[in-house]
């Protein structure tokens, strides 16, 4: 579904991504792990066209590197950024409506589905986005991207700063998304959820991929963990 080859990105003159490659197949949950500042978010932004990439990004057999973000989004790529980016002056409902690419768009997920799944959001349709809790914001931002009917979605650090109960809900939603046929690239720092729900994992260090493999391979290879992830 998504194939990234030799992806490079620069901020000013500093070389942030140095030849990243990764692959996500249909219906898969793939995790991208790594410490703060190794370039995970930049990878997402480069795929999304928000930082100008050099290299190849093929999505559903077509090259998308170099396109504008909105064009990439219209091809079916969704992105949930780390900072959630809820529009604070718009209501919950308006936030969701902006997720639709066209007015009245109907896809795998509709706004009604979202409200059914998360009654909490349904109760607060007319509350301004700036006045809902962090957990609700996380749900809202994921749902906002979902109603735009992407075939592939990148989720950047969805559990950051959430209470354990919310974390549980988020990971359930991610699995739900994958079941509906949407591929997921999950960017995480913590291992707990990533290990539990993803099919394959990539580990990033300093602008390149330093490990790729299945869950079992990852569990077996403790040296990667030690060098690039934890403690």
């Amino acid at each position, binding site marked *: 579904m998504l194939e990234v080859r030799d992806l490079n990105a620069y901020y*000013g*003159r*500093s*070389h*942030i991504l140095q030849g990243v490659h990764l692959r996500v197949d249909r219906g898969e949950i793939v995790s991208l792990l790594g*410490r*703060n*500042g*190794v*370039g995970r978010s930049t990878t997402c932004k480069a795929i999304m066209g928000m930082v100008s990439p050099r290299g190849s990004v093929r999505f559903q057999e077509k090259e998308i590197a170099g396109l504008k973000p909105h064009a990439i989004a219209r091809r079916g790529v969704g992105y949930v950024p780390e900072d959630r980016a809820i529009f604070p002056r718009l209501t919950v409902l308006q936030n969701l409506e902006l997720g639709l690419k066209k007015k009245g768009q109907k896809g795998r997920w509709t706004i009604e589905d979202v409200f059914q799944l998360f009654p909490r959001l349904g109760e607060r349709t007319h509350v301004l986005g*700036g*006045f809902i809790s*962090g957990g609700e914001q996380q749900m809202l931002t994921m749902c906002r991207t979902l109603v735009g009917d992407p075939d592939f979605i990148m989720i950047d*650090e969805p559990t*950051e*700063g959430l209470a354990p109960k919310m974390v549980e809900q988020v990971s359930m939603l991610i699995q739900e998304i994958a079941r509906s046929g949407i591929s997921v690239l999950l960017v995480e*720092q*913590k*291992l*707990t959820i990533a290990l539990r729900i993803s099919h394959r994992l990539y580990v990033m*260090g*300093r*602008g390149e991929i330093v490990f790729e493999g299945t869950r079992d391979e990852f569990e077996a290879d403790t040296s990667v963990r*030690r*060098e*690039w992830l*934890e*403690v």
Partner: protein
Amino acid sequence: MPETILSLKGIHKNFGESEIITGVDLDVFRGERHAIIGPNGAGKSTLFNLVSGLYPVSEGRMELKGHDITKLAPHRINRRGLSRSFQTTNIFPKMSVFENIRCALLWPMGFGHSFWHLCERKKALNDRSRMVLEQIGMADRALMPAGALSYADQRFLEIGITIAGGAEIILLDEPTAGMSRHEIERTVNFIREVTEGKTLVIVEHDMGVVFDLADRISVLVYGQIIATDSPEAIKKNEKVREAYLGKEAV
């Protein structure tokens, strides 16, 4: 009884509706290496931004060497002997590496806003700039524009700017972010070396670095410090394990 150099009393900080720091009390002792750890979003960087004066505190009192610094502007706090680094690289990108360091030395060496001295003519200033460059291992790149350095080198320069002035208390915000194990080791040694005899407060994710460097550790969770203790005691602390490291603590 060790002497307290930095003391925070009942610090609160809210941005609009959301309260990020919800009552922090902390005493940092002179000469210790103090690490602040905690999950993402716990407010560690915010705490640094409060202490260094970038944000005004909503409530509470901060003292540096016994003087109230609660309402002081960043440059005033800096002049009292507190220097900090940033999590995201924050240097002077268009100026040369040497110039970056030299600028950081101007105020501590008493040049102030003077426009009657020529920087080139001040031997002590230039000697010390070169010394700091040697320390951070960048003497060979002194004339390169700082923006053209590699990411890791920019991180070193960032720390270089922070320690150059010889501040008594140094705050480092995730100095090893984005580095490999190898570079991290180099950085830890370097930090240990340059903060010898000074007070260090460090925010860090990497537990290896924390347990390696710190004399004492504070754990910040949801805007509150739930424990401050020696590394060994923190490792054993049940509350910390539960709140932060999780059940699968490695």
